[in-house]
């Protein structure tokens, strides 16, 4: 039932324990305690909204930064990754396979802000060999949700 509750919340974090109880056949108190435990265990890490910022004027600038590093003997990529993760400009950070090591998604108010983060903070870090910065031009889909031009309900009335 834990999985079922998590799936429902992952789809819509605003579902109330009462609703989830009705959807699963659990009691509301049971749902609340499953959620509380999941939060304590950091199975549920955070609740957030998917915002389509491009609808507003004060858009955020996002950049995908490829980072090549030289891993350390003892700690591998973890030490450098943990350092990079601390910067507030870093929204998401993954270790990846392929031609570079760390994929950084950085967020800023202006191009300038991201540019100076890369040139002044990220690139000079010990262990960073090189960076390649790709500014995001348009978001089509985020966290499984198609942001625009999704499909509307085209059901027509039919006898059945």
């Amino acid at each position, binding site marked *: 039932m834990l999985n079922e509750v998590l*799936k*429902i919340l992952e789809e819509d974090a605003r579902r109330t324990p009462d*609703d989830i109880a*009705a*959807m*699963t*056949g659990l009691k509301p108190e049971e749902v609340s305690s499953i959620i509380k435990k999941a939060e304590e265990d950091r199975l549920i890490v955070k609740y957030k909204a998917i915002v389509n910022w491009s609808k507003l004027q004060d858009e955020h600038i996002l950049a995908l930064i490829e980072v090549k590093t030289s891993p350390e003997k003892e700690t591998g990529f973890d030490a450098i990754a943990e350092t990079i993760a601390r910067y507030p400009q870093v929204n998401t950070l993954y270790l990846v396979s392929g031609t570079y090591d760390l994929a950084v998604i950085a967020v800023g108010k202006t191009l300038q802000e991201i540019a100076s983060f890369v040139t002044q903070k990220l690139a000079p870090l010990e262990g960073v060999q090189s960076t390649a910065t790709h500014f995001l031009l348009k978001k089509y889909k985020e966290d499984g949700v198609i942001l625009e031009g999704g*499909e509307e*309900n085209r*059901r027509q*009335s*039919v*006898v*059945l």
Partner: protein
Amino acid sequence: MSGDVLGTDISSFVARRVKDLAPSGIRKFFDLVASTQGVISLSIGEPDFTTPWHIRDSAIQSIKKGYTMYTSNAGMPELKEEIARYLKRSYGLEYDPATQILVTVGVSEALDLAARAIIESEDEVIIPEPCYVAYPAVVNLAGGTPVLVPTDSSTFEPVPEIIEENVTSRTKAILIGSPANPTGAVISRRVLEEIADISIAHNLIVLSDEIYARLIYGAEHVPIASLPGMKERTVLLGGFSKAYAMTGWRIGYAAGNRNIISAMTKIHQYTIMCAPTMGQVGAIEALREADGDVSSMVEDYNRRRLFIVNGLREVGLSCPEPRGAFYVFPSIRETGLTSDEFAEKLLTAEKVAVVPGVAFGQSGEGHVRCCYATSLEDIKEALTRIDRFIHQQG
């Protein structure tokens, strides 16, 4: 517009058996729904999902590659093979794709063909009701007589004793649907075994509509064809509309004895030629690659099913737990209204559309059909409105 031309009443040209066909109770009701603004509809028996993308893509690619011609009358061999494989792996049923499977334009066509293939004038077909609106109609159109018998009033399963009491020398077949529209009932193995015994004892065919077979929640779907001695006398009717959210593609199939399938194919080739090619390509993809999509849709329906059953019970409507399809069939007897009155007043007062149970036969009176293949938000709002409506009635 007048029906009279040169002194002739043109409507007199319409054949008697068509004129006598009752207009679907749902049609009448839908006209009312369509003319009302801002309605939350629990009335349409159709998945609210669009077809999984990879199925759509397979059809698009096939069009690009030039699959635009007729297929064999009985359907694409690859599709018939996939259907045979599916019936084998799911239920252990073995059909020869070349002679025992026919691809049709939805289960609707398969049902019509089956009726026309076996019914002689005035043959009787026993149909437990409440049932899907087309069952009695296809029997009538084939020149037969539907013999409607009530299901169990609490489980909505057919009652074997009542079926047997209604067998006469003219009875040709029993027509069942499981999981059922409009009740969501799943016929248990025990009841199916008794129906099988009756059909063997009286030498009857069973037409088994299994379009909702994959939409099942914590119950077992037993094709009656899988019971001993039943494969040859059962026409299994299946399709893609509900489980794969492919309603608009119009692909169904029939599996059964080669003589009956061949008779059905004869009618099919004269009236339809073949099922749409693009739809068949999509159906192949569905059978090969869409099990994961089906599971996640079923999980989603199940949440809404539990939610709506719980909600209806909370507002005071008794509601047997449906184990299949995407319908609930609560009793509205407590309100003192007929199902027609309930549905119409609920629509006018609260703009919620449900289908009066009587549309599915006299045994459906006292109930309404709610389809939960709609968003949870809509279900929630509909329940709030139904609650308000019921309390205003009291």
